[in-house]
């Protein structure tokens, strides 16, 4: 597929443009967090419970203990992006490894690996994640690896299916006849062809990972030393009767982040499969 044609198809969709611009906004917020708010965002800086759009020094207001919500939002954007990306990469690596081996070799290996995948599809993801955190402690690396380790099953199934169809194609048979090792055939012949749909799925995993992180930190089960939108929603609960904006603002941030990633993922799917057309998207 030509890159320019792909880009043109991608940019022809309004949801792609909307999604991309929101992502650019969030990334910008994350990049300028330390410039605009160089100090620790988890420090009290003003009177508590200032409403948004009241005090120009604190445009999004302050929370129950006088921390600046805008500062926490911008620093939280970093957490959201970092966790979403790293967790998605971890999940993709696990999924591609298991899916590739399973689809390439088939038979007993495939059977065993798919039973293992099924295990992780059955265990409720968030419950497993909570169990991991309760065993290994609410540290950021546990959270990231944990989210990665509950998000890879879809990737494994997708890559396996791609490998199963691709492994009997002529170019693979030719590579085999030329005496290439299995590892080289997997990595340099089949994998590049299986990658486009995998990239789309990886973008959707980012959205899911952001939601997992938000849920965990909302419950107070993620790293307490790191600014996080989910945690801010959770802390806003204690003042929900009077200052509901403390919970409302970061929740909007989470929603926008997930929304934009999903829009981009859908637009990528459409751009990759122009034959499917709009009706089939989402099935």
């Amino acid at each position, binding site marked *: 597929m030509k890159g320019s044609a792909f880009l043109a198809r991608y940019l022809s969709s309004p949801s792609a443009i909307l999604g991309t611009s929101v992502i650019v906004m969030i990334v910008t917020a994350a990049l300028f967090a330390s410039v605009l708010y160089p100090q620790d965002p988890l420090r009290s800086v003003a009177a508590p419970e200032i409403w948004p759009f009241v005090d120009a020094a604190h445009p999004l207001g302050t929370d129950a203990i006088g921390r600046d919500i805008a500062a926490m939002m911008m620093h939280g954007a970093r957490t959201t992006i970092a966790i979403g990306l790293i967790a998605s990469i971890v999940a993709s690596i696990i999924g591609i490894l298991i899916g590739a081996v399973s689809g390439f070799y088939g038979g007993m290996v495939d059977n065993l690996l798919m*039973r*293992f995948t*099924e*295990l992780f*599809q*059955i*265990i*409720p*993801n*968030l*419950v*497993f994640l*909570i*169990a*991991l*955190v*309760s*065993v*290994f402690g609410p540290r950021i690396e546990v959270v990231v690896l944990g989210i990665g380790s509950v998000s890879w099953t879809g990737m494994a199934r997708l890559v396996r299916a791609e490998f199963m169809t691709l492994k009997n194609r002529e170019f693979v048979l030719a590579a085999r006849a030329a005496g290439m090792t299995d590892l080289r055939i997997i990595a340099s012949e089949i994998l590049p062809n299986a990658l486009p749909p995998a990239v789309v799925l990886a973008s959707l995993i980012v*959205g899911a990972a952001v*939601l997992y992180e*938000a*849920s965990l930190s*909302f*419950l107070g*089960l993620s790293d307490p030393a790191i600014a996080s939108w*989910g945690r801010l*929603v*959770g802390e*806003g*609960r204690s003042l*929900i*009767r009077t200052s*509901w904006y403390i*919970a*409302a603002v970061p*929740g909007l941030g*989470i*929603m*926008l982040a*997930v*929304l934009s990633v*999903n*829009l981009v993922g859908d637009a990528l799917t459409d751009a990759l499969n122009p034959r499917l057309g709009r*009706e*089939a*998207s*989402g*099935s």
Partner: protein
Amino acid sequence: MYALLKLILNRLAHAIPTLVGIIVIAFILLSLAPGDVVDILAADGSIQDAATAAAMRAKFGLDQPLPMQALNYVIGVFQFNFGYSPIHSLPVSDLIVSRLPATFLLMASSILLSVIVGVVIGLYAALNVRTWKDFLGSVFAILFFAAPSFWVGLMLMVVFSIKLELLPVSGMVSMRINATWFSQALDIARHLILPTCALGLFYAAIYARVMRAAVLQVSKLDFVETARAKGVPEGAIAFRHILRNAVLPVITLIGLQTGNVMAGAVVIEQVFSWPGIGTLLFDAVLDRNLPVVMGVLILSSVIVMVTNLIVDILYFILDPRIQLEKHS
């Protein structure tokens, strides 16, 4: 009937090794954690000396080698024994069972809401494809698919409980004496509305998207054209011909999503102080009461497996064309 029985037996035979795998994972996590039940009891002063601690360890089988402990744990779970909660001084199974009805109620009402809302919106959007009605349906689906359920719950709470004072803020029952069973049921139903919406709307968004795609796909098939050519009214085509076939992927998804609904309930229970296994799990995590955490992990997996079986049976009944080979 014979085919159905074969399907069920086949599924059960497949499920047992899976269940053993899940229990082993739970056991590995349990043994990786620093400290055991006896350490927890020692920490809060229930056990004073080393001799009692050793006796307790022997009683719970904690003095045996790890593979033996793992085997005992697996056998125990199959006998519905998930170990002992030192904080509650109760078997873990009793604790979980006492909390299950509340969680089941929340899950059932959320799934019901999500299916009804999702199917109606998806069908309506597809029948009006590429109009503003379709567009509104898509906006609903995209927004609620992205909104975190706990935040939707909190915002519903702000609007309906705090500002409008229409619905209770949290809990499952109001304190009331001498209430008839009917007013008690009504009271629980009132408490159930907001958590159900918070949890269910996310899945309604998924089902709406899937339903829309399925309806569009089915309406292009030959038998729909045939019905139209025979002069069957459009309404009857939509309900009798299209809906019945388009709803199948939604049913598959319900089965696949049960685990996520359960996990979602864990968070939503926390938002509304709903007294189910989510609240139990959350308290257990804070207390580092790991036998309870692992009990919830295993039992929620079992519930997912049972639901998958029910969905398979439902699918079989709704679509007899699908026989065993498609499932294997």
